[in-house]
């Protein structure tokens, strides 16, 4: 069979997911913006009273723009594991006329797409709401766009990877709290890599093994300017490399888990 036929089937698999996504997109935006606006409001209006710089609000909104996809993909992980355990729609897809691994590639493409669609609006909506409190004069749209694409790809591959090794739905919450939450928190979400490195270079070096560091630093470099952040091009490249690693390892482990052809 021709590769074009595989792509045709994949396209309609993504299209199926998109059709379902449209049913819930309004709720997803509401959920996302409640989190972003609440966090930003506290950071912008309250934390300066505790001595934090007023520019920290912009810093945190950029961090949240980089993090929002992770929370969205938590629900995708739950849905995927739920499907493996229950509904088993995936088992129908695994009999479609294409190599089986392409089913999971199509899942990954959809996850990346839905992350991009949701998180692309975090920065513009935040600017509209917090206008003077959000300084985006250093924003580089090209770099931000590339970083958004790389970040979305990473979260998509991370979803597949998580689903590949979480044994059951009951375990998802524990894995999230014991693994994902720490790598996110220690992935330079609330602080910059430079601050950590100044505090302890060894912690800085260790942080370079955490893919979230590149997601956060790259996004902030694209929004706030390069000064004080890891190089944005390096962050984009490494985020893509981590995406490839997580996606390929995730798909390999799902193959073992589901024992498909």
């Amino acid at each position, binding site marked *: *069979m021709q590769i074009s036929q595989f792509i045709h089937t994949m396209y309609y698999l993504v*299209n199926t997911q998109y059709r*379902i996504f449209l049913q819930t997109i309004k709720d997803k935006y509401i959920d996302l913006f409640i989190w972003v606006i609440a966090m930003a409001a506290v950071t912008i209006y309250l934390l300066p009273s505790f001595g934090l710089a007023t520019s920290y609000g912009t810093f945190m909104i950029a961090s949240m723009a980089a993090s929002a996809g992770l929370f969205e993909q938590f629900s995708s992980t739950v849905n995927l594991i739920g499907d493996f355990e229950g509904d*088993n*729609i995936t088992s129908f*897809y695994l009999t*479609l*006329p294409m190599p*089986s691994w392409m089913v999971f590639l199509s899942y990954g493409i959809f996850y990346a797409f839905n992350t991009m669609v949701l998180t692309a609006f975090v920065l513009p909506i935040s600017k509209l709401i917090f206008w003077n409190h959000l300084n985006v004069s250093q924003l580089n749209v090209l770099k931000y766009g590339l970083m958004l694409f790389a970040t979305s790809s990473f979260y998509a591959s991370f979803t597949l990877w998580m689903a590949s090794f979480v044994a059951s739905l009951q375990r998802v919450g524990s894995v999230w709290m014991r693994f994902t939450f720490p790598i996110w928190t220690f992935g330079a979400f609330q602080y910059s890599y430079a601050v950590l490195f100044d505090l302890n270079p060894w912690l800085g070096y260790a942080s370079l093994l955490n893919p979230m560091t590149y997601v956060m630093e790259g996004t902030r470099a694209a929004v706030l300017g390069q000064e004080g952040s890891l190089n944005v091009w390096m962050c984009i490249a490494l985020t893509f490399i981590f995406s490839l690693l997580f996606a390929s390892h995730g798909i390999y482990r799902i193959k073992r888990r589901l*024992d498909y052809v």
Partner: protein
Amino acid sequence: MSQSLLQVKDLKKQYGSHHALKGVSFSIEPGEVFCLLGVNGAGKTTLSSIIATLHPATSGDVLYEGKSIYNDVPSYRQQIGYCAQKPNLNPLLTVKENLYFAGKYFGMSDDQINSRLVELHQRLGIDEYLSFKSDELSGGWKQRFMIARTLMHNPRLVILDEPTVGLDPDIRRQLWYYIQHIKSQGVSVLLTTHYLDEAENLADRVCVLSQGEVKLIDTPKNLMKSFDKKNLEEVFLQLTRKEG
């Protein structure tokens, strides 16, 4: 001599130390309804899922028109339709959308899908419920739509894994008529069941599986004759008693 549509050769499947299939061999002819019979745990679902390329075999081969299916899995999948035991229509889409996308996955155009939906409606009477989501349907209707989805792309081999489990007798009968109709169109059917009346009514040949092995393969008529029994159920009971 005409070539078998499907040949299963010395198929084995092992899960850890458990041997689910211990070297199963048989063939299915074009337009034949081939029935896999066996008690729970005999290996029927494992075997049908391997033939549907859902799971790989540990060893052995499956030939489709004389060629190993593993040489070109996607092309083989284009020729088959697999209806799993447990309904797995997408509950977030209407059943019409489920059928539409099933057609699209197999490369059908919108016109082909629409005319196929009309055909399937005429045979299965599905029109009334097309706008429903699968969770809103009864078990019988879900199963009917599962079969409709399986047949959407006009497969040459249909694999039905216990399609009538838990259904009312009248719905079972309707599905039987439809299986007979598929057969009359020249489509081969691999039907797994543990309902012996189903096998007796539908099968050209039955294959009795027990503990991952083929016990015997023959037509229902020949089996009843050679075992001197009035129906397949008595044959099956005699066979399973012998094992006991």
